[in-house]
């Protein structure tokens, strides 16, 4: 396929966004636009039970009454929601029984992205290297999920959302939409109506998940929105560490990504959720790129439950994202560690909400925002303690680094305490990458780009340390790549 090859070569020569290639395969698409027929089409394609279809239709009716939010510090042209495809799936030639039935183009895509889909490839890797189970989502469908059998031995359920609806309807019905209600916000409601695929994880009581779980999202098709939905449940005393990675081809049109992620942690359970978001950010002139409007929320439902969100946000043209924790259980703990990098014309409005409901709940926020080029980077955070949240504590550290003089950094903290027995601490700094430090590094032999990477990595170190080892190394490289050409 010469067209594909050409695209790949063009993209490789650009080097700035190395995941920008397009996979040329036959797709099955729903007609463009959004109406109840499309919702029915998606549900039918997935062979969903009636209750799921009803849920979607109710969400769609609700969505029709809602307005797109405008409070975030981001600007983008009005989205025509009728001018997008809401379902795109690689056309399966036969029923998929094993990876060998998967379109080789898709296998090749994940290989190029460095995502291991074949278990033996993972196993053949370095001895003692951590094994990671992967759910690969390609446009609207999950194409492969690895290590399922091994995980099943310890009772862990790790599968695509579509499968979970059919295989584990009771669990899904018990938890779906309980953290992010259908009516939560414009994008979450849209997602509830048209969500395509995503990952479902259930860790049974007392089980420590024996390996890292991960989902790798890839938007490929043009004019297609991705609306994935992820639900992770850690039952009493369970532990899981979950990683999420995302990339998309370089396209001139903007593409919408509106995901919903729900986490539920019961008594003494712990969930670590890490994201390295590297959607295509658009070109130098701000053309194209992903609109990343995501609702991520964790419910620390049980006593002493713990959730931490760690995110490295380097991609997307516009990011609107506030992974949050509802600290419902007494003594539950929430953490948010974030690195948000904007360069070129990117805009990010991101942060977190820590809602303290239970007694002696604790939360910690460390946000590192880096703005370069003509970009804008906003931290927006809410910390609230309700009347019963006696002894609630929050610590917030919010640092911004500016590279150059055409970018902006903004910090918008909201604090609400309805009990006098809450302690909130907030520290914020804004610094400009110093010419003096750069010269010092260069005098020691570091070229400017390496010096910037080193200084920036120093700035974000506290957050990088929260990532699982193998992800931290990737993230460190990504930080350097995202800022290439930002100085000098």
């Amino acid at each position: 396929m010469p067209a594909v090859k050409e695209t790949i070569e063009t993209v490789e020569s650009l080097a700035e966004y190395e995941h920008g290639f397009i996979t040329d395969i036959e797709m099955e698409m729903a007609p463009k636009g959004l109406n109840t027929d499309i919702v029915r089409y998606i549900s039918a394609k997935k062979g969903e039970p009636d209750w799921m279809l009803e849920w979607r239709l109710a969400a769609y009716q609700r969505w029709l009454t809602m307005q797109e939010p405008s409070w975030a510090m981001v600007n983008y042209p009005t989205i025509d929601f009728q001018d997008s495809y809401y379902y795109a799936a690689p056309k399966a030639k036969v029923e998929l029984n094993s990876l060998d039935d998967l379109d080789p183009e898709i296998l090749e895509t994940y290989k190029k992205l460095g995502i291991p889909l074949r278990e033996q490839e993972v196993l053949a890797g370095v001895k003692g290297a951590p094994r990671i189970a992967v759910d690969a989502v390609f446009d609207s469908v999950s194409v492969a999920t690895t290590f399922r059998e091994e995980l099943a031995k310890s009772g862990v359920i790790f599968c695509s959302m579509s499968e979970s609806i059919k295989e584990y309807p009771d669990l899904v019905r018990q938890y779906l939409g309980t953290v992010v209600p259908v009516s939560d916000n414009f994008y979450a409601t849209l997602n509830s109506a048209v969500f395509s695929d995503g990952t479902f994880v259930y860790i049974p009581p007392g089980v420590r998940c024996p390996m890292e779980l991960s989902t790798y999202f890839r938007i490929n098709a043009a004019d297609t929105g991705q609306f994935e939905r992820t639900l992770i449940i850690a039952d009493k005393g369970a532990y899981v560490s979950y990683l999420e990675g995302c990339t998309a081809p370089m396209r001139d049109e903007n593409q919408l990504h509106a995901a919903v992620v729900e986490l539920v942690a019961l008594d003494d359970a712990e969930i670590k959720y890490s994201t390295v978001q590297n959607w295509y950010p658009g070109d130098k002139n701000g053309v194209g790129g992903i609109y990343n409007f995501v609702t991520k929320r964790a419910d620390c439902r049980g006593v002493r439950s713990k959730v931490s969100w760690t995110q490295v946000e380097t991609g997307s043209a516009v990011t609107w994202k506030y992974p949050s924790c509802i600290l419902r259980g007494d003594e539950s703990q929430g953490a948010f560690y974030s690195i948000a990098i904007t360069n070129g014309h990117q805009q990010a409005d991101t942060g977190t909400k820590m809602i303290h409901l239970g007694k002696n709940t604790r939360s910690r926020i460390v946000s590192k925002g880096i703005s370069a080029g003509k970009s804008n980077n906003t931290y927006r955070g809410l910390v609230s303690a309700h009347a019963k949240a006696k002894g609630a504590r929050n610590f917030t550290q919010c640092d911004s680094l500016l590279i150059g003089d055409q970018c902006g950094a903004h910090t918008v903290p909201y604090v609400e305490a309805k009990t006098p027995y809450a302690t909130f601490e907030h520290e914020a700094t804004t610094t400009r990458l110093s010419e003096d430090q750069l010269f010092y590094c260069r005098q020691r032999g570091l070229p400017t780009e390496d010096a910037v990477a080193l200084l920036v990595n120093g700035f974000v170190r506290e957050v990088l340390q929260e990532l699982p080892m193998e992800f931290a190394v990737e993230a460190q490289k990504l930080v350097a790549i995202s800022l290439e050409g930002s100085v000098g």
Partner: protein
Amino acid sequence: MLNINNLHVEVGGTSIIKGLTLCVPAGEVHAIMGPNGAGKSTLSYALTGREGYEVVGGTATLNGDDLLELAPEERAAKGLFLSFQYPLEIPGVPTLTFLRTALNAQRKARGEGEISVPDFMKLSRDVAKKLGVTPDMMKRPLNVGFSGGEKKRMEIYQMALLDPRFMILDETDSGLDIDALKVVSEGVNALRGPDKGMLVITHYQRLLDHIKPDRVHVLAGGRIVDSGGPELALALEADGYDRYKEAA
């Protein structure tokens, strides 16, 4: 080795170095002394290529290479090192990470391979022992929260580890107590050699008791106004710089 000829440097449109000529042959250590504001640090920044220190005339070469043509990191790779009068703090970057990255960048620029981690660890420990740098200092982010004296010690530690060919020490003695001065001076002396050169900037004689210079120059009003042997430093200590006011 280092040849500076009729160098003119402007800072923010003001002429600071006004026709400076100086030659440091391989194997020698030269001291530059002079009153505050004479342009000593300006000279060191111009030689290492700091932005804002505009060379408007003259030449400077190191072993025949035109320094003024090169980017700061290229000058470093050629073996030019500056021990800063005011070392910078680099938050979040452990000293050893910083130094390994710098060393490898220099080696890469020279077409050499990367140093292995065990070799680097051994090197860093050996050098640290000689200079009284503690393991804790090596692990902490570079210079962050260090005292003035610790920062100066760290500069010489970096210098010893990077093993440059030409070293400029800008007021390394300030901030060091007597004991530290001795340790640091010994470290510096160990780096002298037949194919190395040093320019030691100071305005006190006491450093030169420990690091014996071959030549002493007086910098005043942007020029070298006097040169002599080590005895010149002693005379300056006794009489001060007043007699050069005219010359400036």
